[in-house]
């Protein structure tokens, strides 16, 4: 008898957990809707941080631009020419799918998106459709500022690492980054090469050089995998 009670107690406990988890996750994953609005704090409290998830995966609007990071470095009074820090990494990725380039590329690609203050926040999209002049929609709110600041931390460190390659480790004093946003041709012009698309560029102000990777790791700069990060 005791055995049956223990067994049923566990079944009920697990079933309750499963129902709560599945119901909450379904609600968490739905687009903004009235039920979600009402229960939002609870839904997030259950889901965060252990069960955070995002399955947009190229939806609803797939990514359709290339972001190219360009770097130039200052040492004393000399400024190096611009160099492409993205294409060499892409080349290595395309050459070998089993390379760490896939993840290394994501750092700079995500950093650029963060620095631009882009977000896939659906609530924000709803808000901005109604109130385009809202501070959040113009990127003048603390949340966007925080996101951009993280983006610039990552960009500055990526740029500094690139300068270690260009002028030698620790020799640069300042870094400047530019981003080329390239949109490949649309479907109707699919036969055009990549250059057939549109390109615009954004140049960020000079940033102070910031050495990274612990000093004892300096010797590893010669490692081709690390060198690839910065695009030589």
């Amino acid at each position, binding site marked *: 008898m005791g055995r049956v009670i223990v067994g049923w107690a566990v*079944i009920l406990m697990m079933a309750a957990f*499963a129902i709560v988890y599945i119901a909450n996750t379904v609600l968490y994953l739905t687009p903004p809707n009235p039920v979600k609005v009402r229960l939002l704090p609870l839904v997030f409290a259950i889901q965060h941080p252990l069960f955070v998830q995002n399955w947009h995966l190229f939806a609803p*609007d797939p990514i359709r631009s290339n972001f190219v990071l360009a770097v130039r470095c200052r040492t004393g009074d000399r400024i190096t020419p611009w160099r492409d820090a993205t294409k060499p990494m892409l080349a290595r990725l*395309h050459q070998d799918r089993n390379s760490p380039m896939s993840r290394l590329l994501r750092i700079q690609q995500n950093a650029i998106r963060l620095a631009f203050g882009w977000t896939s926040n659906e609530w924000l999209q709803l808000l901005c459709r109604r109130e385009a002049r809202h501070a959040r929609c113009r990127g003048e709110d603390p949340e966007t500022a925080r996101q951009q600041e993280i983006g610039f931390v990552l960009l500055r460190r990526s740029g500094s690492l690139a300068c270690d390659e260009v002028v030698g480790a620790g020799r640069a004093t300042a870094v400047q980054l530019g981003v080329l946003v390239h949109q490949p041709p649309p479907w109707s012009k699919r036969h055009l090469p990549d250059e057939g698309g549109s390109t615009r560029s954004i140049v960020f102000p000079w940033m102070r050089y910031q050495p990274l990777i612990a000093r004892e790791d300096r010797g590893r700069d010669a490692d081709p995998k690390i060198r690839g990060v910065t695009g030589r």
Partner: protein
Amino acid sequence: MKSVAGWLFREHWLIGASITRIMLGAWAVYYYLLHYPVRSLLWGPAGIWPYDRFIEHLQLFSVWQLGPSPVLFEALFHLGIVIAVAYTLGLWPRVMGVLHWVMIWSLGERNPFIGDGGDNIMRIVLLFLILVNTGAYFSLKSPRPADATLSPTTSHQVAAVIHNFGVLLILAQLSMLYMSTGLYKAMGELWQNGTALYYILRVEEFSWPGVADSAFRSPYFVVLGTYGTVLFELLFFPLLFNRWTRYAMIVAGGVFHLGITLFMGLVTFAWSMFSIYPLLLTDREYEGLTAWLRRRLGLVVFYDGWCPLCTRSIRWLGRFDLLSLVRFVSFRDPGVVERYGLDERGAERRIQSVGWSGRLHEGITAMLDIAVRSIPLWPAVPVFIICRMIAGQRVYDAIASRRLILVPGGCVGHCPLGETSDAGGR
């Protein structure tokens, strides 16, 4: 009600859970080793995401928060590799399940800028796998200590209930993933007009230069791929409820993720998604599948039991038949010729084999049949094929015809063995 409880009190999906454990463990080993040369940059205290920032943005916990020392970093990183290997091998599966989740979670917390959907689903699945018995198959597990407070059946029942719910939660999670992304895609304009795949494949980060170019310019490929993706994702969950449509979804998922890997280069993403798929088959289905494969691949080999060289070679070959697919029978044994309808003169001349199709193979072809079924002999398969192409049965016959035949009752123990090498077989 009773039958539901009875069903829950027995562990299901044990084989699938073990395969999932191995696949996710191997994923982590691959991931650690792939990024080994760049580990300091990705996760180190002075890497791309500096230590103080990481602490400031910590969500829950991470083993790396213990300190910024590079020595500690190295120690924990290598510990993570050791845990991943132990988890893959199935050593102390319960303990390693927890530790492995802790290490993978920590990695994601340490650098949140390199993750993708594959990492995301893996973190959740690894957490649910803690509830699951992942060490029942293919593992070097340590024996489970008996629980003194509860009778063994009660603790076993409780463990079974938790295990089954763990698997069901993982399957529910996978279904919600596909449903969510499918619905979002259906809302997107480019997914609706069938060109989404074109735009994705034109982004260099997700392309396959040289190959994708001709694919993304083909309207048939692009529209089929775009709509096919949305349809697969939306239909995945509802079609799990029928056995045959579930099999179809497993195949469709395989094609879908393989396509993503090839065209978009997202290797680890497909790997972590595939790792969940073994749970889509029940233990009974795996057993049925192996039994069917055994029937299809089973082989009976007839050798000459009166020839010491043959007997020795057969014993030697038998050791390589790790999957026990081959049954070796001496045609000299009483009744064998009649039972299998063998031609005794043919059997005397060459080794013979009969597979599932019932067709008789002999000589070098029979040797090839054996080699194909014995994993350690796979390197020899091309040798046999080339040998057969060049010389047919001649090499085999040259060895077999010179063999020594000892009629039982003749010499025992000190008989001279044939001068030929072992390679001859019979």
